[in-house]
């Protein structure tokens, strides 16, 4: 991994649950994020996958300082940003920008595109002097593939894919080094998703950006990511390069997740093994003891209820080499290939996990 630009250590976000009006008494907490560690290298893309409620969006919000962590450290170029305030914090926030999921609600309908993309300059005027802003905004429109003459239009005059481009342009305005993209394509139509993914990949090369790319669509995450972390109920349960995670998963949750994704190849129907998990994700207010996945795990044994598995290379693999050796938070981690390897381009033409966007088309 190249030198880390962003490091996250023991990140925790608990939302207190209170009872009473005047004398609020804390009766519990929603443990949205419950101890997350990772590092993002310069110029790298770290994908984070997981199902709804696993805390991936809360991690994103903490990275851009929209939420304050309950505990833990976020280091940007070695400096802990959770302790910063005032001017120093403002300078850091400039460098970490966010692209949101829903281009329909994340753009103010009463502002023109020019005002939306130029708004970051109001807060950070040092980036672009006033007289220069309009030109900068037009440049940005051009960069994201929109006609610079559209600067005076309103969001409703654009399609979903175009709106997402506007959101990306806004994220780029301050020339950040890190972009946190939270489900940036899941609200878009299938034929438009590829356009936006290509745009993001191109911008990364052009501006030397580092991405934290959060999504539930496993095939898109694989396409764009150098490394992938799998989250379950507030924790990363497995992390590694895309090959390690997709072709050599060792955590049972990752295996179940990968096997559940429908493969766009009708020939694969007969000869693939599916791991169907029982039940639903437990409530984050009441996390199971020991391993948090044990209530749905097909491998759970007694030890899993007592001992919390740590995110590290599992004992069984220590001293070994190969792609199965990567951090996996499971006591009984073992390699299992759940998606058939790609063979000749006729039969198994498409590779694993492809899944549509998380919403309707």
């Amino acid at each position, binding site marked *: 991994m190249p030198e880390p630009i962003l490091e996250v250590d023991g990140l925790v976000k608990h939302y207190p649950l209170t009872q009473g009006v005047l004398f609020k008494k804390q009766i519990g907490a929603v443990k949205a994020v419950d101890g997350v560690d990772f590092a993002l290298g310069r110029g790298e893309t770290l994908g984070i996958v997981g*199902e*709804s409620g696993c805390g991936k969006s809360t991690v994103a919000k903490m990275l851009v300082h929209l939420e304050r962590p309950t505990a833990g450290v976020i280091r940007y170029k070695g400096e802990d940003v959770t302790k910063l305030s005032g001017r120093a914090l403002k300078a850091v926030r400039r460098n970490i920008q966010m692209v949101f999921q829903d281009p329909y609600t994340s753009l103010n309908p009463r502002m023109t595109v020019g005002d939306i993309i130029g708004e970051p300059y109001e807060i950070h005027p040092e980036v672009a002097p006033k007289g220069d802003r309009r030109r900068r905004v037009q440049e940005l429109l051009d960069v994201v593939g929109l006609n610079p003459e559209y600067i005076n239009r309103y969001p409703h005059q654009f*399609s979903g*894919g*175009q709106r997402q481009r506007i959101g990306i342009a806004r994220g780029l305005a301050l020339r950040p080094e890190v972009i946190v993209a939270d489900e940036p394509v899941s609200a878009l*139509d*299938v*034929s*438009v*998703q*590829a*356009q936006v*993914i*290509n745009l993001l*990949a*191109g911008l990364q090369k052009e501006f030397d950006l580092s991405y934290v790319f959060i999504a*539930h669509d*496993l*095939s*898109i995450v*694989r*396409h764009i990511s150098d490394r992938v972390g799998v989250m379950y109920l507030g924790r990363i349960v497995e992390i590694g390069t*895309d090959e390690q995670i997709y072709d050599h998963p060792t955590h049972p949750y990752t295996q*179940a*997740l990968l096997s*559940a*994704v*429908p*493969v*766009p*190849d*009708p*020939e*694969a*129907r007969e000869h693939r093994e*599916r791991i*169907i*998990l029982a039940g*639903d*994700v437990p409530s984050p207010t009441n996390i199971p003891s020991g391993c948090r996945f044990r209530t749905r795990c097909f491998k759970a044994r007694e030890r899993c209820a007592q001992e919390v598995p740590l995110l590290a290379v599992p004992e069984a693999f220590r001293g070994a080499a190969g792609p199965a050796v990567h951090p996996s938070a499971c006591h009984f981690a073992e390699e299992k290939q759940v998606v058939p390897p*790609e063979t000749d381009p*006729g039969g198994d*033409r*498409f*590779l*694993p*996990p*492809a*899944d*549509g*966007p*998380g*919403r*309707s*088309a």
Partner: protein
Amino acid sequence: MLLEVRDLHVEFRTRDGIAKAVNGVTYAVDEGETLAVLGESGSGKSVTAQAVMGILDMPPGRITGGEILFKGRDLLTLKKDERRAVRGAEMAMIFQDALSSLNPVLSVGDQLGEMFVVHRGMSRKDARAKAVELMDRVRIPAARERVKQYPHQFSGGMRQRIMIAMALALEPALIIADEPTTALDVTVQAQVMDLLAELQREYRMGLILITHDLGVVADVADRIAVMYAGRIVESAPVHDIYKAPAHPYTRGLLDSIPRLDQKGQELYAIKGLPPNLMRIPPGCPFHPRCPMAQDVCRTDVPPLYEVSGTRGSACHFWRECLHA
């Protein structure tokens, strides 16, 4: 044939003009068969289904032509009460968003039982017993206790299973599932699709699965109808279409799925945007986005050419596309 939709046309009158949502859709489903209707937003896939179910909002919607033959009878000529007797009892629908399709102030038992009270004239007590039976059938644990609970007390996957139970209640011959798993997480999606497929086999129902997800389609469908701008652009058995699409739009959709050997490269992307339904381009509606478009595509609407006995493509150049 269980259901045959023939040359259906639906339009919506809006303030800004007439939106032509469905422009001559023809498809058929037999009993025990799964037809996947694949399309993006605005392709008319849901509107067609709503017309079949008879739940289209009219006005602003209007069926301007075509036939919907169900067991040989044209549903569009039926009287309101005759239509009502078909809906729910002989064909049922599963919606995308179970939370907003269920009534929040009625217990799930009441909502499931209502089917039996209204259509079968059962007493409330018998209907309640039937509701418990159905919840068992869709594998909701502790059905006897949970039958009294309200929709918000169930998880997303369970709510969708309750929707399935409701659709199955009267053992209809046809089920229309409109994006039934889009709102669900993948591991739950797998549970729900498995259940649906199992029940379909058991009751030998016809199933119309409306979706935009090429993965789900490959998993469960027998046949696929691909829709674009209110038309069927390609219709084929599932294996054929994934092997060699006969329409450039289908090809574009398949090619834009990320593949391993393309990692780090540009993804194939269909250029442009789906058309505005108020201003559908003349000729082939896909021509402004099509990499194969020729002059004829800009002027002549392609009919659904017969590619083989079981396969059709609405492309003037389907041969070239098939062998590309």
